[in-house]
């Protein structure tokens, strides 16, 4: 029984590791400028976590194999060094490991969150609501018109509560899909009209909650043209699973055309 346990345990450990080692399932390729550090951090952590996982399971299995069902008379052995050595080793190994992780991790984190957006970053506003994202581009004047919650009316597609008689608002462009030019920093102003939502684009290595009553913002630069998905990761009600929008990363030219097209539809 004990030997079966040992074998099973080792098989399970190896089985669990294989998909990771063979990269069967892994995050989609990074398309952001800040993502490289995160990926690096991820693989470092994966290595350390994976090794400690395998080591622990193997040693456990081996000890169970060797020391199970020994006769009553069998000598009780003592682990070389005893508890003191073990505690010290644990402290040093795990301590240094986690501190190292923490420090490198905070470097990656800082690269995402501690820099303010560049002055020329392109502002885009996103309005989250049950259960869709809508986006607003400031238009030629580069200014967003003010939002009036009492004017929000999805029946008339007025998702932002805009008053089109206001000068700043007139040229605002509201879209249901998000498009950004490649290699241009985007400053995303996040607003939720009703509940908590979240903005998650795995390829962009970005996840940020919408906090009602607290307007947050993230900034990022996409480096690869393509079509990606924006999904909501904060439980927001029955349609949560279907709260999504598409993100198009265009060349500057295509982006301008797209924006013209959308402007015409207003």
């Amino acid at each position: 029984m004990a030997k079966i346990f040992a074998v099973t345990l080792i098989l399970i450990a190896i089985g669990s590791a294989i998909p990771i080692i063979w990269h069967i399932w892994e995050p989609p390729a990074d398309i952001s400028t800040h993502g490289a550090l995160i990926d690096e951090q991820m693989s470092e952590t994966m290595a350390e976590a994976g090794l400690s996982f395998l080591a622990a399971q193997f040693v456990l299995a081996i000890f169970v194999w060797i020391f199970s069902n020994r006769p009553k008379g069998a000598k009780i052995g003592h682990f070389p060094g005893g508890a003191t050595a073990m505690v010290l080793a644990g402290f040093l190994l795990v301590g240094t490991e986690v501190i190292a992780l923490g420090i490198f991790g905070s470097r990656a984190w800082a690269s995402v969150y501690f820099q303010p957006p560049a002055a020329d970053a392109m502002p885009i506003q996103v309005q989250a609501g049950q259960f869709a994202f809508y986006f607003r581009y400031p238009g030629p004047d580069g200014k967003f018109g003010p939002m009036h919650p009492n004017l929000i009316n999805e029946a008339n597609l007025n998702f932002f509560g805009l008053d089109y008689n206001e000068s700043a608002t007139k040229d605002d462009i509201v879209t249901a899909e998000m498009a950004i030019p490649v290699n241009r920093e985007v400053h995303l102003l996040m607003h939720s009209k009703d509940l908590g939502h979240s903005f998650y684009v795995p390829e962009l290595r970005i996840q940020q909650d919408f906090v009602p009553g607290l307007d947050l913002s993230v900034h990022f630069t996409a480096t690869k043209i393509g079509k990606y998905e924006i999904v909501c990761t904060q439980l927001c009600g029955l349609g949560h699973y279907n709260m999504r929008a598409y993100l198009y990363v265009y060349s500057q030219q295509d982006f301008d055309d797209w924006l013209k097209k959308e402007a015409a539809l207003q």
Partner: protein
Amino acid sequence: MKRDYRRTPVLLLAGLAIICFGALLMSQKVSAAAEGKITGTVKLEGAAPHMRGIDMSKDPYCVKQHENSPAHLENVVVGSGGGLENVVLYLSQGLPPAAANEVASGEPVFDQKGCMYTPHVLAMDINQKYKVITSDQTTHNIHPLPNPLTGNIPWNESQPPGAPPLIKSWKAEEVAIPVKCNIHPWMHGYFVVVKGPYGTTDTNGSYTISGVPPGSYTVTAWQEEYPAQTQKVTVTAGAPATADFTFKAK
């Protein structure tokens, strides 16, 4: 003694049958009396407002449904010759209680098709049950938001593809109850709950209110964007009365 006991259910059933039959006759009488009808057309005067196109890109299924027929808002739909669609006409005054309480036959159907509501406006009699069905392969949730003061209770249920129809009814008259789908925020329509006969305009703006007993009434025309209008109409048995309405574009 025993025998009597055995007989009692039979007697009860017989009595019940008689009552039902009688009721049936009565109801037929009522409907026989209501043979008049009101017809007419509703037009929009002036330029129809621009109806924005709907971007359904959040749900690829919906996009596919409208590949060659782009979807637009349906708040104001003007047909050939200025006919105004989706206007509900009902008798706001003068209806005899008997006719008002008559149970209208049939179940109005509210379909979810191509991530839009058909019809956009569903009129029904307070005594009618209505049926919500879905023809889409994506999940919708149906969320009517009645005015809390009317006593109507809001509900919010989703309908996965192929789910059985939802059969519901309203407690009180209300013109009109907005209904929306949260999963597809652009989807929106109205339930118009009235007492007695009603009619809804078609693409040409023409309508018919049938089953109106002879008498004089006030007909109200309701449209979601424009203030409601009323007209006095007198219905005589046999000859259909006409009432035309014209809404002014803002």
